[in-house]
């Protein structure tokens, strides 16, 4: 898997495809409050975009490497935990976003908290999908 399997057709076609995948992933994430979607689906789409680049252009296209993927997934879990912990400072329970005074009403603060933890879920799922692809296709390093 050192060099990708993309010929000239794939190499041109995925350049047109990639921006739409990325925009669709962000739309699935941000519009998850009002339509089907959410963090897990958006994370799968973002991971798919990075995997597609590595499949077509080979492993030399170091867009998101394994080190960055580990950082991303751990950062996603930490964002989730951090937003859950945030409500402690205003006397709420763990993951009780309604007490955080960022919006006028508790319902709006809850909507914002839901969006925040969905971002965390997205980063975690994206990082883990990239980790799985990268670890399984990695070449054995010579001694």
């Amino acid at each position, binding site marked *: 898997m050192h060099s990708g399997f993309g010929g000239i057709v794939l190499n041109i076609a995925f350049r047109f495809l990639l921006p739409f995948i990325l925009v669709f992933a962000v739309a699935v994430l941000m519009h998850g409050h009002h339509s089907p979607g959410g963090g897990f689906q958006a994370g799968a789409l973002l991971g798919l975009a990075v995997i597609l680049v590595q499949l077509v252009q080979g492993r030399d296209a170091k867009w998101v490497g*394994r080190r960055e993927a580990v950082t991303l997934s751990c950062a996603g879990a930490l964002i989730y935990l951090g937003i859950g912990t945030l409500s402690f400072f205003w006397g709420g329970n763990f993951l009780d976003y309604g007490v955080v005074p960022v919006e006028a009403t508790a319902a709006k603060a809850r909507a914002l908290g839901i969006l925040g933890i969905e971002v965390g879920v997205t980063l975690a799922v994206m990082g883990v999908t990239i980790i799985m692809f990268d670890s399984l296709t990695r070449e054995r390093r010579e001694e």
Partner: protein
Amino acid sequence: MKRATLFFLALIGGLFIYASFDLPPVGDHQSPAAVHVSPRYIESAYEETGTRNMVVAVLADYRSFDTLGEVLVIVIAGLAIVSILSARGPHCPLDDH
């Protein structure tokens, strides 16, 4: 020992099957969960969370502890994949063959 294990497994399995006869039928709108928990979510999810997608409201607000567990499981699985598949050195069992 093996026979006793099989006996107790069969006993517990039989108890589960016996208990399953008392479960409400699938799709019963009079089951305890459907008359107690579900109407609360359906009626007040939008006022309480400001989220029209009820699935997201349940997943990320009412049951956010559950989702936290899922995310942690996924991240731990990814870290395990990295630490197992990237192990190198003279004592690595993956390098033997």
